[in-house]
């Protein structure tokens, strides 16, 4: 299993860290160098954490755990109108990104109101492409109770964020409600921590499932192999996104055949993954379990 963490520090000898990660069989997921400051998301084998920590200490950098790293999350609000955007949806999204998640936002076409609130089949399919969903439903208890019914048919882990603090719902975080300003006070930041930890709890079940029935290859490894075959275009941000049990690959239609032929161990990618076009964007690669594909190496 890989562990994903963030390194923050200066540029002094940071290439040594990159080399060490490569030598240990790890990957650099994101890298940004701003003048003399460097930020990197590193993925490396769990057992080599001590070695990485020592190197970071030697370089005088900071090391941060990313509890949601390797997940793609969707944040769903009743609409993208002025009533629900930009606060609190952007505050929550930003906080989840700080915890390592890749976030997307979605406003339902007809999600507003109480009796008239709906979720279309296409929206449901779109939400289910992600690892987990965060539903942000206003201030009123009566409306949340009604809207929760829409989420019941969703097949992925999800949490609900709302106003009342004492609602008896599974994976619910209260005290947020409708906002007209950024969540920047201490109490509000604590609420954002609650949202991130509740999401972590919701995802724990899915992580356990994957641990019990491991997937054929790590999404990190497949991502690396894809990027070796089809290098990302200049300036393209996050062309390939890792999920817990798969990847979202943003490539042209003509490249899909090239991807299917990529060799992962003794099998082709098309043999270990289910490849389908995403309703949202790009292609989804769902990695089959090792029990189905057999050993790759």
């Amino acid at each position, binding site marked *: 299993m890989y562990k994903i963490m963030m390194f923050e520090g200066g540029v002094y000898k940071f290439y040594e860290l990159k080399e060490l990660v490569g030598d240990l069989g790890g990957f650099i997921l994101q890298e940004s160098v701003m003048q003399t400051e460097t930020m990197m998301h590193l993925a490396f084998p769990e057992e080599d954490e001590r070695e990485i920590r020592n190197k970071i200490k030697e370089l005088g950098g900071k090391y941060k755990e990313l509890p949601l790293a390797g997940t793609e999350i969707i944040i769903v609000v009743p609409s993208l109108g002025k009533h629900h955007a930009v606060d609190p949806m952007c505050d929550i999204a930003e906080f989840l990104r700080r915890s390592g998640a890749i976030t997307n936002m979605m406003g339902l076409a007809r999600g507003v*109101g109480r009796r008239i609130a709906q979720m279309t089949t296409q929206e449901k399919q779109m939400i289910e492409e992600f690892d987990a969903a965060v539903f942000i439903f206003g*201030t009123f208890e*009566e409306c949340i109770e009604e809207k929760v019914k829409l989420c019941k048919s969703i097949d992925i882990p999800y949490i609900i964020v709302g106003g009342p603090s004492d609602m008896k719902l599974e994976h619910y975080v209260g005290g947020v409600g*409708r906002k*007209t300003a950024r969540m920047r006070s201490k109490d509000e930041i604590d609420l954002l921590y609650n949202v991130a930890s509740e999401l972590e709890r919701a995802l724990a079940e899915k992580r356990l499932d994957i641990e019990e029935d491991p997937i054929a290859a790590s999404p990190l490894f497949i991502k690396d192999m894809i990027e070796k075959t089809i290098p990302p275009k200049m300036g393209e941000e996050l062309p390939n996104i890792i999920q817990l049990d798969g990847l979202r690959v943003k490539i042209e239609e003509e490249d899909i055949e090239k991807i299917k032929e990529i060799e992962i161990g003794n099998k082709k990618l098309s043999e270990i993954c289910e490849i389908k076009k995403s309703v949202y964007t790009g292609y989804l690669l769902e990695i089959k379990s090792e029990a189905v594909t057999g050993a790759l190496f």
Partner: protein
Amino acid sequence: MEVKVEGVSDFANESYARICQDTFRDAGLRSNIDHVYMHCNPKEFIFIIVAKIGRVSRPVTVWDITLQEGKKLRITTERYAPKLLALLWDKYGEKVEQVGRLELLLKLEDNEIKELLDLVLYDPKDDLVTRILYALDTIIPEGARVRSPMHSTNSVTIIASENPIGEGQKNKAEEIVSKYV
């Protein structure tokens, strides 16, 4: 500006009072509204909001936003510049020339210049109700799309719901208006 929200839990009341304060502040209406009363009933999905209009600032004249230097006029508040130029060109045509970004040259007689300085450029009363309605629309939950406005000389009231609004609700709104306005 005083805000009172009733009908729901303490958290929701406080939350909507905050929303009212922030929305009216963003719309630049805090000094124009005396008080706001909002009644929320999420069970029947009915929201009644009343805004009592207070003091309205006096009209802005050309003199307020410019400095006269002989035959030249210097604009001191740039946000009014487009409105001012449109007004002067409409009224005086080529006799008013824009010589710099914020500088106008007036080819007018002294008495005409005096008259020009008293021209009303913008009267906040003109679009006050429109701005209040915009603010109320931002406050009322988005799902409450069926609206019934009630306008009097000193207040703006909106009844909003996702269901048809009946006479009972209109009467209740009238009661609220008579109590709070």
